[in-house]
């Protein structure tokens, strides 16, 4: 029995110390190496040209949702004190929690549509790889555990600041304090492990596009593309380009 508990401590040590460093070092080394060596593979591999109607209901809710959720996590990590200060008023706490929860639901709705689209649209299905399904799978896992945590282990915005921010900083400072996370409920621990798995996979998948977002598109002037051929004619099967 006593041996079992010690064994369990080593498991915790693996998931919350070894995995984070493995994930972070892989992330930094491989993202840099891939950018230098294979810069042209830094892409979201967009399939918008293949199918555009459902794409809207998949990508737009997903990205708005995930940006809200990630911004919330990042804020809790960088400014835990300010977050607790904001939450010292119950109404503000509720507004923050509901906003984050809506972000989570948006991510889930988007992701469900992504899955449906990639399973039902023939052209999109064609370009979907195993790695894509792996990314989708781990994101479903993250959203599932995250929404569960938001509902059943509230209020995450407060306890993230007091328990997880110190843990994450202890990782950054190379002095891991696993005692902050080991007693937490299993869903939260799975969510943390999933997060490090996402970081680990990041440099090997289409997720890298997050680092090369063409932000100038937000403010540069629109450009009209003009085609030098009959756009309807080239879509007919008889059309040959060298005719």
């Amino acid at each position, binding site marked *: 029995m006593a041996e079992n508990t010690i064994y369990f401590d080593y498991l915790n040590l693996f998931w919350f110390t070894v995995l984070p460093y*493995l994930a972070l070092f892989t992330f930094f080394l491989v993202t840099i190496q891939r950018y230098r060596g294979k810069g042209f593979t830094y892409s979201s591999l967009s399939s918008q040209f293949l199918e555009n109607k459902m794409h809207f209901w998949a990508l737009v809710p997903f990205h708005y949702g995930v940006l809200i959720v990630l911004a919330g996590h990042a804020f809790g990590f960088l400014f835990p004190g300010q977050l607790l200060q904001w939450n010292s008023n119950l109404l503000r706490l509720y507004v923050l929690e509901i906003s984050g929860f809506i972000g989570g639901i948006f991510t889930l709705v988007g992701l469900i549509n992504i899955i449906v689209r990639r399973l039902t649209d023939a052209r999109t299905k064609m370009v979907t790889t195993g790695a894509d399904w792996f990314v989708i799978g781990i994101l479903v896992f993250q959203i599932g555990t995250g929404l569960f945590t938001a509902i059943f282990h509230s*209020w995450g915005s407060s306890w993230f600041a007091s328990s997880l921010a110190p843990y994450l900083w202890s990782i950054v400072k190379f002095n891991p304090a696993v*005692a902050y996370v080991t007693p*937490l409920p299993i869903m939260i621990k799975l969510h943390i492990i999933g997060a490090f798995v996402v970081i680990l996979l990041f440099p090997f998948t289409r997720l890298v596009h997050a680092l090369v977002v063409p932000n100038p598109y937000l403010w540069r002037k629109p450009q*009209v593309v003009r085609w030098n051929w009959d756009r309807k004619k080239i879509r007919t099967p008889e059309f040959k380009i060298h005719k």
Partner: protein
Amino acid sequence: MRRFTVKRRGTKSASGSVWTIILLLPLFFSSLLSAQVPAEYFKQNCSSCHTIGGGRLTGPDLKNLADRQSRDWLINWMLDPEGVLKSGDPYSAKLQKEARGAVMTRSPGMTRNLAVALLDLIDEESKLDKSQFAGTQISDRPLLPEDIAEGRALFLGTMKLKNGGPSCVGCHTVNSMQGLGGGRLGLNLTRAYARLEGRKGLSAWLVSPPSLVMNPIFKEYPIDEEEVLPLVAFLKNETERDEPENATAMINFLLYGIGGAVVLLVLFDLLWNKRFRAVRQPMVSESYHK
């Protein structure tokens, strides 16, 4: 271009560095497993349930512990209380009965060596007239309505804890809370005063919380002794009011979230109503007019 020539070399050195770092990781573990000073450990992990010569809290008074059980039994108990209890040991069953069903938790980082060091400490402290672990002397003055109000403010976070600890409501709720309630990570504290057998037990608990989640936080930002009494007053009041649980809080949170998401999705559809026509056509027609 340069970036194509470094491709192979880059791959090699990257994976090499990753493995070097993995091999260096065990260095970090050593700092985690290092032993603590027993007195400091006792204060942080044991003193919320045990005194040495100060009477019973949740757990028994440990003065002259060596007279009650053999050292081997005590070490096994400290390493794995649940296991000893499950093995059908009669003395541990008696302890559980005396603690009204509460079982000792396995303290963080407990090892055989640490258990021996703690038992030595308890023996030493038992010889003293007044041990440093005789218990916190929280004032015996009667609890006032102002204490309840102050305790409530500390619980909700409208009044900050002096030493910078996070307020209770982030993880705990009480039944008198309306709306979406308090946190649900930790226990509902409506009956905490009753569970910890009143003022003395609850005070000792608050001075150094043994909960594994709270322990690392409040070790660094302890609840000030002047804040303990108001919190006790507030929680006593909650136990006495003993209101029914606010069952709708979680459902309401869920409904607010889903409702908000639906409203926003409808708004998105309205906002981007012309999304497949709005960009290109006006621009093309405009360029023809020029």
